[in-house]
């Protein structure tokens, strides 16, 4: 397949005009009594030919430019560092609270994507703004996305039910729009098993290459019923994902790694986080959990994931259509400048 193409191919008929300099010299003629008397002058003839060629080339360049010469969109296969990442974001209402478990004070600092003003937020002006967990997640994930140039990123959300937001895509504007939309107030409860199933479904029909990452960002967990648990085990195995759990721990809540003080509390209802962690650990897939109690710790965790996930990945980079008409016009300008130069050298036969 030739990569060269034209916007208006019919304009190429104008190339015939380039033949014009062949039978019209474009120069002043001087009367001379008898041409045969002139001595042969190969240099003049060569210059003459050259001038005509330059003129022909200039006309041809203009016509090619006019017909919109361009290179078609192509894609080249590259090897880079990247991954297919599905972010599963918690939209349960507790995400709108701060890490201290309070409603955020002040407005958030405007550093979140898009800087959309959050509504329904107490505006205690002057107070030190305490970021909500959702705002911190939004800010840090936006930075993370900006870092990862070659990744395909998809976004799913969940509260009581899973929300499909954005398929795996390289379109950064779309991903940012989806992350920014989490600034709208959070929804209801936490039903993590449906969310996980939806996030895993993003990898269906996606060639297994590079690393496949499921990044779960949540501030709580819920017990998974045995049916879902069995189904999830199979899904995790099939999709060959690496799982990262970024757990945003609220102050004074049991963490992922907390062991129950009282054996009576050792059940999934009382300690869902611990049980979810055990479930993930038992999947026999690469799994890493991070517990973050503040935005700083969260940033560290995200930086850690960024560093870990640098496996080589084959990806096709699309090279957009390249317009060549500018090049044609530029060439025409240079050639015409040469002609003008030649014109200025013209001498008049007295």
């Amino acid at each position, binding site marked *: 397949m030739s990569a060269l193409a034209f916007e208006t191919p019919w304009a190429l008929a104008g190339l015939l005009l380039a033949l014009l300099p062949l039978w019209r010299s474009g120069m002043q003629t001087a009367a001379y009594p008898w041409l045969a008397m002139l001595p042969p002058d190969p240099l003049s003839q060569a210059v003459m030919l050259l001038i005509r060629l330059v003129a022909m080339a200039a006309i041809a360049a203009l016509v090619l430019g006019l017909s919109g010469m361009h290179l078609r969109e192509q894609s080249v296969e590259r090897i880079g560092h990247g991954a297919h990442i599905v972010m599963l974001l918690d939209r349960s209402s507790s995400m709108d609270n701060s890490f201290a478990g309070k409603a955020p004070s002040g407005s958030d600092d405007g550093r979140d994507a898009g800087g959309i003003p959050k*509504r329904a937020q107490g505006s205690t002006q002057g107070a030190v703004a305490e970021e909500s967990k959702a705002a911190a997640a939004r800010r840090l994930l936006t930075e993370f996305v900006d870092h990862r140039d070659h990744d395909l990123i998809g976004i799913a959300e969940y509260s009581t039910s899973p929300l499909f937001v954005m398929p795996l895509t390289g379109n950064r504007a779309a991903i940012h729009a989806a992350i920014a939309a989490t600034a709208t107030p959070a929804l209801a409860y936490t039903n993590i098993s449906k969310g996980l199933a939806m996030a895993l479904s993003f990898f269906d029909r996606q060639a297994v290459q590079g690393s496949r990452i499921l990044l779960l960002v949540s501030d709580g967990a819920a017990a998974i019923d045995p049916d879902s648990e069995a189904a999830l085990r199979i899904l995790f195995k099939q999709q060959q994902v690496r799982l990262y759990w970024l757990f945003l721990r609220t102050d004074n809540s049991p963490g992922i790694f907390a062991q129950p003080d009282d054996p009576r509390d050792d059940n999934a209802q009382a300690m869902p986080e611990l049980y979810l962690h055990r479930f993930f650990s038992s999947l026999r897939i690469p799994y890493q959990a991070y517990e973050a109690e503040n935005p700083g710790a969260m940033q560290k965790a995200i930086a850690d994931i960024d560093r870990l996930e640098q496996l080589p990945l084959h990806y096709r980079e699309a090279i957009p259509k390249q317009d060549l008409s500018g090049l044609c*016009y*530029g060439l025409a300008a240079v050639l015409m400048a040469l002609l003008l130069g030649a014109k200025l050298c013209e001498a008049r036969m007295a």
Partner: protein
Amino acid sequence: MNWKLKDYRFWCLSLALLANLALFAFPTRRQAGEVYNLTFVIDITRSMNAEDYRLDDQPVSRLAFVKHSLRELLGKLPCQSKIGLGVFTERRSTLLFEPVEVCSAYTELASSIDHLDWRMAWAADSRIAGGLLDAMQLLQERDSALIFVSDGQEAPPLNPRYRTDFSAIKGKLKGMIIGAGGLRAVAIPKFDRNGKRVGVYGPDDVPHRSSFGESDLNPEKIEGYDARNAPFGKQAAVGSEHLSALREGYLQQLALETGLQYRRLSDAAVLAEAVRMPEFALPAAVETDVRRYYAVLVLLLLLAIFI
């Protein structure tokens, strides 16, 4: 050099070169165009599963038809237009993503629209007025028109005594309510917890009147009225809330109260046509390539030399 040598050929060539330089100096011209910034909030409550639309001679649900219309719309919006998507259920609306440019994100938008599903609903009620108010508040400070798509069936039915008050927000944003559904009442499919279809909702499955707060009727008119134990009377409510039709009157009333437009989604093309109304159009400067006009001039001047 002799002055006489500056003949018309010299001037043609000089002008051609000048025109060519002008081509590089001013390659584009700004032209006024119209683009749209729309945020769709789609009703994903159960009644949207009622099948009263037809696509390719197959009955399809209201939600499926709305999705189909949205995909049609995608291809018809001019580039630089933006579309955002949100869903409504219970009394809340949420945004899935902020408006994104339609041409560069066509596949992503199409995929997100395809994945809209009633199973995304995080709660089961259908308080349309509440959802509409919520959606309007979400979009209040944004430069995006709200397109709220619903069939207008409140579930459980609304108590006229407690109505959502839109006066604070009326007229603050542009938008349109799109009524989806047929005017004849049809049954609403019922699904079990695994998503398998198990028949349709029957009269005993749904409440037929609001039992919240106090009745709006005069207590003397209510049979078996008891202020504490039976504020709505002792009669069991009967009704046809298990069937669903487009409540156009209700949606039109909501449109009036909120200052939004109203259109009925009677066929798939309506959506694309309705939302491209002048009120929603945003002026946009579209840079157009005007190099070809210069190039034609240059070419003519250059050819003139050889005449």
